[in-house]
């Protein structure tokens, strides 16, 4: 063990010292050509983006683009370490929960002068998306996409349970008895003897297929949605204090725990808990769950796992307060320390152009940051027999953005551990809510 540690220590030290010297960032010019590094975290979106970038390279023969892919958990560790080592990727995906810190630390390029200089028309972007990335007249990113959460279901599982897609419309849940949402999930949950969860003799220990699968490192794809539908706002105000210990929030957390432990209609946390659990397209694709709550960015993954019309998307149920979904959008950002600001700006312009976003939307990867292209995305999926307009309706309805806070790092790290325990039944929703509220608030100065 000692040798391995020594070797990795030396390697780490070597990396750090290289980073500190500002070398080893791979963006050296070779033979007049510039290599830009472009960082992202979603491998589902990578193929169509990569394809479009090849077009960009054809149009700009002196620029090469190297995509750096890391999953969500590693992405932020790595990016922030690279930022500290002054060797961050030239262009990268930025997220609203990290944006405040980045803009404050000056690691993002202000695009406003470049936009003015090249007369880029920013009115094409969704105003709601674009506004969030402006600080004191400075523009720190242009919209890449937007997303909401929906209920992805396997058409086969639905059919076997004798349900139609229409039966999933208008479902409601409540903290007391679970409502029609739980009743539908019970019909979709089958044990090894073929008994459904609403039938006598159902064995919750030997379930073959669960009604629902949930997985969310932060809460975005699971309990935040129920929280919103139950009148919980997570914070007292944007940039304010966390209020997860309020009854409306605790009930939402309790409901997600109940789906697993009381109603036995959701895949156990031993399977789905992040970061080691399989992604939900896999869980539904393998037939372990009939449906899953997931983000619109997962459509292509579900299409791969359940090809040829094997899946559909329904709206999330309505809660005591009504319908609602978490709504979020990403931006493309340029690293302030890039050695190739001109080329990086060219790449960013491409990534936020109608042409690129149209190509990515046509591939069905993600809802575009340019609203006029929304129909391109919807039509691409319609051609495959999947109606995705529910995501758009959700975005136009009651939504909740990502909580705006300086405690994003603390919330993300603590929430992962705390809620994993809740879903396992090792921590009560009340205690968990108090714990995360206290710890995240302690990180707010």
């Amino acid at each position, binding site marked *: 063990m000692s040798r391995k540690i020594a070797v990795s220590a030396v390697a780490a030290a070597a990396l*750090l010292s290289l980073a500190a010297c500002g070398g080893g960032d791979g963006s050296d010019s070779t033979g007049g050509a510039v290599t830009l590094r472009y960082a992202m975290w979603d491998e589902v979106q990578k193929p169509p983006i990569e394809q479009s970038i090849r077009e960009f390279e054809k149009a700009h023969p002196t620029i090469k683009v190297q995509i750096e892919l890391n999953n969500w958990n590693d992405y932020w*560790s790595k990016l922030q370490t690279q930022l500290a080592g002054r060797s961050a990727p030239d262009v990268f995906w930025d997220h609203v929960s990290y944006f405040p810190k980045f803009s404050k630390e000056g690691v993002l390029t202000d695009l406003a002068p470049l936009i003015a200089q090249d007369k880029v028309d920013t009115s094409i972007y969704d105003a709601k998306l674009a506004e969030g990335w402006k600080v004191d007249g400075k523009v720190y990113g242009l919209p890449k996409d937007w997303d909401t959460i929906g209920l992805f279901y396997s058409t086969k599982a639905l059919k076997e349970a004798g349900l139609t897609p229409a039966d999933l419309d208008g479902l409601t849940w409540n903290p007391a008895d679970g409502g029609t949402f739980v009743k539908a999930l019970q019909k979709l949950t089958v044990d090894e003897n073929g008994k459904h969860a609403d039938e006598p003799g159902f064995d919750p220990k030997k379930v073959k297929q669960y009604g629902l699968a949930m997985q969310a490192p932060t809460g975005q794809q699971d309990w935040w949605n129920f929280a919103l539908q139950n009148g919980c706002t997570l914070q007292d105000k944007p940039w304010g204090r966390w209020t997860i210990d309020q009854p409306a929030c605790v009930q939402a957390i309790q409901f997600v725990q109940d789906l697993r432990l009381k109603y036995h209609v959701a895949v156990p946390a031993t399977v789905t808990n992040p970061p080691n659990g399989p992604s939900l397209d896999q869980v539904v694709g393998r037939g372990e769950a009939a449906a899953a709550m997931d983000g619109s960015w997962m459509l292509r993954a579900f299409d791969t796992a359940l090809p040829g019309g094997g899946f559909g998307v329904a709206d999330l149920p309505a809660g005591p307060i009504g319908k609602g979904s978490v709504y979020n959008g990403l931006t493309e950002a340029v690293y302030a320390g890039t050695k190739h600001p001109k080329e990086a700006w060219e790449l960013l312009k491409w990534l936020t152009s109608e042409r690129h976003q149209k190509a990515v939307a046509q591939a069905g990867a993600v809802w575009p940051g340019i609203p006029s292209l929304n129909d391109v995305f919807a039509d691409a999926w319609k051609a495959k027999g999947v109606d995705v307009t529910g995501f758009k309706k959700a975005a136009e309805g009651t939504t909740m953005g990502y909580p705006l806070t300086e405690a994003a790092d603390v919330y993300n790290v603590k929430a992962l551990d705390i809620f994993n325990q809740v879903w396992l039944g*090792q921590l009560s929703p009340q205690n968990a809510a108090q714990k995360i509220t206290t710890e995240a608030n302690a990180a707010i100065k």
Partner: protein
Amino acid sequence: MIDNITYDRSVQGHRRVERRLAARVRAVAEAYALLAPSLVGFLLFLVAPIFGVAALSLFDWNLMGAPSFVGLDNYRELAADPEVWRAVLNTIYYVVLNIPAQTVLALLLALALNRRIRGGKVLRVVFVLPWMAMPVALGIIWSWVFDPRYGVVNQALGMVGIDGPNWLTDPAWAMPVIASVNVWQYTGYTMLILLAGLQAIPHTLYEAAAIDGTTPMQRFFMITLPLLRPSLFFVLVTNTIGSFQIFDTVFVMTQGGPGGATDVLNFHIYQQGFQLFRSGYASALAMVLFALILLVTAAQFLYFRKRTVYDFS
């Protein structure tokens, strides 16, 4: 070096001394020349970072903005942080689970393989194989093996009617699983060192003891064990240091969970430093780990120094 040089009042003596001194200097210079590459690496990549970390532990720095000097604040905070104490206890718990099991198992294997048995050489390689594999890849594979629903372990237990636990998500089981994975991985390496130690023990000692009518048990405790001490000392010291630094298996299999049950010091340092970006605080924690290891290693040195024989002749 100088002590060994005898001074001679005669001129010849002086010359002899000069010649010997010159030879000495040459030899020393040669030695340093040969040592230089690894010494430079050692200073640059090990010693310098240690001082760097020590200095950083007095600052508050999120890696991006300007660091601000906070004196001993980080140390005050960690002394009062229950999570740090939990991490220290978790680390010690891991070492206690890991080291005795690994050492005893490796010793038994080494004793078995020290005899001329069929396929001994093949077995030797087989036992060392896990040590050569990548810990991260192994961690992922072991996660599958211990998967509560689909894993081999619980499937096998299910066949004999036992409802296996949720190994990696049960706070009581997570650490023993991590420890057993590492015992499995590093026993072969430890065995290899001990085997080399066993083979260095002269046969004549056993023969003489046999003539004196000793039992095999007596020979083990009176010859093998005392003469194996240099090797045992080496594996105990290096493995203990390595165990205190456990990280990769935890990172891959549990991420410190469930509920902090496997949040060992090194993982806590990673989390503070590279997930929460409190690099000053993480550096202070690293100094604590460093001090802890130094203490334990010093104790091991003191214990073994008096009891170790290096020369068998």
